[in-house]
């Protein structure tokens, strides 16, 4: 058996030694190049099993999932009495969140649905939107801090993540104004931002 014949068979025999013939074994024993090749490929395969799985998705992923499950009615059950009364007591403080969340959805949602992407990017000043979001974010965090300081860090992290997502999506849409996927990506990012606000209204801050 020569090296060409050995390498042609390698795909079928490398992971299953029972498929190797006497000729294959003899070739590995007598050819250092092919022996080296087999060892290298096995080393790569072995090492791949231990590649880390510690990467973690950002908090926005769970936020999105939770909101979607609630909206679809898959998360059910009444809120606790204490949570409801707490919510009722301070509801008027957070009533501004309703128009803020709605405004985000309306401004970004309607515009992106009914305007050609390129024209939209020309009309919508991204810098101005960023400034507006920042003021609303500050107001949201102040409200969270007043109602439930323990949740503040979580909401800060959520906002940081979703703002990074929005920024990425804006950049991507700017670079690819005619790309429908980039526009949809941006829409999704704004929807997620609105969902964070919605969660602050909907969820009892315990």
């Amino acid at each position: 058996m020569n090296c060409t014949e050995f390498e042609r068979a390698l795909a079928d025999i490398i992971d299953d030694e029972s498929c190797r013939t006497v000729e294959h074994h003899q070739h590995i024993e007598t050819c250092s190049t092919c022996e080296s090749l087999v060892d290298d490929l096995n080393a790569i395969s072995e090492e791949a099993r231990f590649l880390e799985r510690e990467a973690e998705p950002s908090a926005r992923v769970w936020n999105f999932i939770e909101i979607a499950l609630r909206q679809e009615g898959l998360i059910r059950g009444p809120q606790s009495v204490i949570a409801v009364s707490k919510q009722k007591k301070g509801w008027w403080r957070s009533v501004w969140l309703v128009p803020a969340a709605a405004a985000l959805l309306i401004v970004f949602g309607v515009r992106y649905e009914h305007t050609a992407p390129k024209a939209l990017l020309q009309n919508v000043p991204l810098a101005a939107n960023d400034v507006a979001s920042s003021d609303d974010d500050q107001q949201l965090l102040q409200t969270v801090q007043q109602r439930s300081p323990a949740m503040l860090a979580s909401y800060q992290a959520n906002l940081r993540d979703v703002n990074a997502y929005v920024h990425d999506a804006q950049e991507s849409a700017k670079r690819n104004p005619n790309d429908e996927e980039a526009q949809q990506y941006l829409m999704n990012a704004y929807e997620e931002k609105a969902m964070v606000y919605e969660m602050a209204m909907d969820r009892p801050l315990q």
Partner: protein
Amino acid sequence: MTDAKKSKGNKLTETEAIERAKQGDAEAFEILYNLHKRRVYSLCLRMTANTAAAEDLTQEAFLQLFRKIGTFRGESAFSTWLHRMAVNVVLMQLRKKGLLVVPLEETVETEEETPRKELGAADAKLAGSVDRLQLQRAIESLPPGYKSIFVLHDVEGYEHNEIAEMVGCSIGNSKSQLHKARLKLRELIKTAKAQKANHF
């Protein structure tokens, strides 16, 4: 968590969380998500090499799973069920983008497709010195078709018959693509090592 559970100080087991999730318990869903998010996300990240895309796919995989949780009867491990769903979500996305190109012909090889095997050359062995970071970077550089098969087999542990069914190719094709992926990785890692050695 109910007050009774809180006072016991017990966390829900996965089985308990599944049953509670079927009843619509928010905390149960979150427990299941936290138990499996790293593995699902890592898979999506390896297949797409893009954190935003990986997060979107992770979301989609869990949503699909949670929508169907009422049908889970426990015949297989929950993690297996979830993982298979995640793989399908990723593969569907790659197909949509035209990135999951697995050649149907096993025997046709072009110069461009087949990594060089360097016949007759005395190569320094990689065995015993495969740097994990270099391997990760090399995987990211693989063409999408090779990457999918390699990640599914060598990283995630699927067998060729399972990969063939998921990807829509033959078992022989899966083996061939895996072999080419490993050859390509070997080439990339050796190049990276040589460049590093030259730099110093």
